[in-house]
């Protein structure tokens, strides 16, 4: 099987965030960027499938120059090739514009299966791979917690997460787009050998023209949804923040829980 895995590079979820000066997004200059969490699980799942059934994995990423690091890591983990949509015209798009570009790239790969994470940890539209499935005309499933390839790779048994601790199990025909939920497996670490080998693996950077894309259809130009501004959430009824060093704050909290909240 040949599996394309669409990944995104996002700010480290543990990063301390600041709103950028123009208010439209966060300050990115001093942030550490990593592979989006659920995409990392998708990479691992793809590698496990090809290890069990043969074939290879191609990592595809739309993102600026820094995203090359995410693709290098994917190659170090065991992907055979990488495709980086790095041209400026691709950037700044909503989920629909991003899916248009990814679909054009995936079509050139002759994949039997596309995997991706269910949702990005930054913008979090959770839509891109479903829209990609629309472009390809393939069935898709979101929030997938189990993938079992069946019958000479003509179908797959899928376990999908539902509300309140229930999973739904069903069969889908291949080729398909599967959007993986974090927790489906335990992602591996890159080995030193893998990191060394990654340097010699192919990393393509096709331009929009190479993929037959008009620049009006992709990136910010191809988007209907635009972020106007971002801010920290507020309930208007914020927590009472207890000050002091650890010991003083702990004692003060216990007193409040006894006397005000009366829960101790």
């Amino acid at each position, binding site marked *: 099987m040949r599996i394309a895995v669409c990944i995104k590079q996002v700010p480290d979820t543990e990063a301390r965030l600041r709103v950028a000066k123009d208010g439209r997004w966060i300050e990115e200059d001093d942030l550490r960027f990593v592979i989006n969490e659920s995409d990392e699980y998708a990479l691992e799942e793809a590698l496990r499938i090809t290890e069990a059934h043969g074939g290879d994995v191609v990592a595809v990423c739309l993102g600026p120059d820094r995203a090359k690091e995410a693709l290098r890591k994917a190659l170090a983990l065991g992907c055979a090739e990488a495709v980086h949509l790095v041209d400026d015209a691709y950037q700044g798009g909503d*989920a629909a514009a991003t899916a248009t570009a990814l679909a054009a790239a995936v079509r050139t790969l002759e994949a039997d299966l596309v995997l991706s994470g269910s949702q990005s940890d930054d913008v979090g539209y959770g839509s891109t791979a479903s829209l990609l499935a629309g472009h390809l005309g393939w069935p898709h499933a979101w929030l997938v917690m189990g993938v079992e390839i069946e019958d000479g790779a003509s179908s797959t048994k899928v376990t999908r997460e539902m509300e309140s601790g229930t999973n739904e199990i069903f069969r889908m025909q291949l080729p398909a787009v599967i959007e993986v939920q974090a927790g489906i497996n335990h992602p591996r670490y890159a080995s030193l050998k893998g990191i060394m080998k990654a340097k010699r693996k192919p990393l393509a950077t096709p331009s929009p023209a190479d993929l037959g894309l008009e620049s009006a259809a992709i990136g910010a130009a191809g988007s209907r949804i635009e972020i106007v501004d971002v801010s920290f959430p507020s309930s208007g009824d914020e*927590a009472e923040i207890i000050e002091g060093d650890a010991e003083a704050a702990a004692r003060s909290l216990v007193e409040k829980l006894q006397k005000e909240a009366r829960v101790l």
Partner: protein
Amino acid sequence: MADAKTIWIVLQLREGGLHRMSREAIAAGQALAARLGARAEAVVLGAEVGDAAAEVAGFDLDAVHVAEHAALGAYTPGAYVGALAPAIRSAAPDFVVFPHTYQSVDYVARLAYEAGAAYVPEVVSFEDGEGELLFRRPVLGGKLQARVRVGGEGVAFLSVQSGAFSGDDARAGSAETRPLELGEITADREILGTETVGGDQVDLSKADVVVAVGRGIGKPENMPIVEELAATLGADIGASRPVIDNGWLPRDRQIGSSGQTVAPKLYLAIGISGAIQHLVGMKGSSTVVSINKDANAPIFTVSDYGIVGDLHEIVPALTAAIADAKG
């Protein structure tokens, strides 16, 4: 009123009646309709939806479209998209509102592709941005919120986050039901069954005190400080999703939309930033205390008390203070 706008609200059913979040979607759709002076019309899908359609007809809506087809009995995205995409293309409503359920999320983006719609997921409120309608939604795991605009021509889809609108605000009234014209509909999944995740060994729903631990704990070797706090309090231990995904606690300890819902007297959130998926599982708690190094963490917006700092120092200090207080 030549160009009166129309809003559709696509409802999810559950055991023959309305899903809780469908009422919230009706409230959201009615609110949006009032803001825009638009018609609000509901859509109900299923194999036999007579009772649910009658229930929906009891709300203040301008119409209830009923899509009945054998292939809509068990949910599959193929059947749902097959039923809805041609109907939306032909009726061309201005907005289509969905409850942001695990089912909607599975098919609404695909439906947006097939219907040529823009899609804004996880909407928590409608806002007026200098005369322009904006939609507020969480980004960066709920650490920030963004206001987004929808430009261009054509339908816009909105899925409404759980709890953002109150189902009690859905206005009663009466609406006429009419059948939705359906084309060819085929399922794209063969449903094999369901399974319960992680068994039901641990029931946190009746716990009086819950100590919940999040990604901020850093590594499993740090868990003993949380276990000691829980033991001192006589609390049950729960966790947010990343802790479970990393295998640091079993899955039946997960609190949130895909895990358990708790409502204790006291909820201590240790190193939990407060993504919406976690908040929906614990917001029924009476008193919430959060310990987090990030003063901007959204968990503080649902907490009564907070301590900003290093949980590795604060948790042992809190355990000692509680032990002292108990004498």
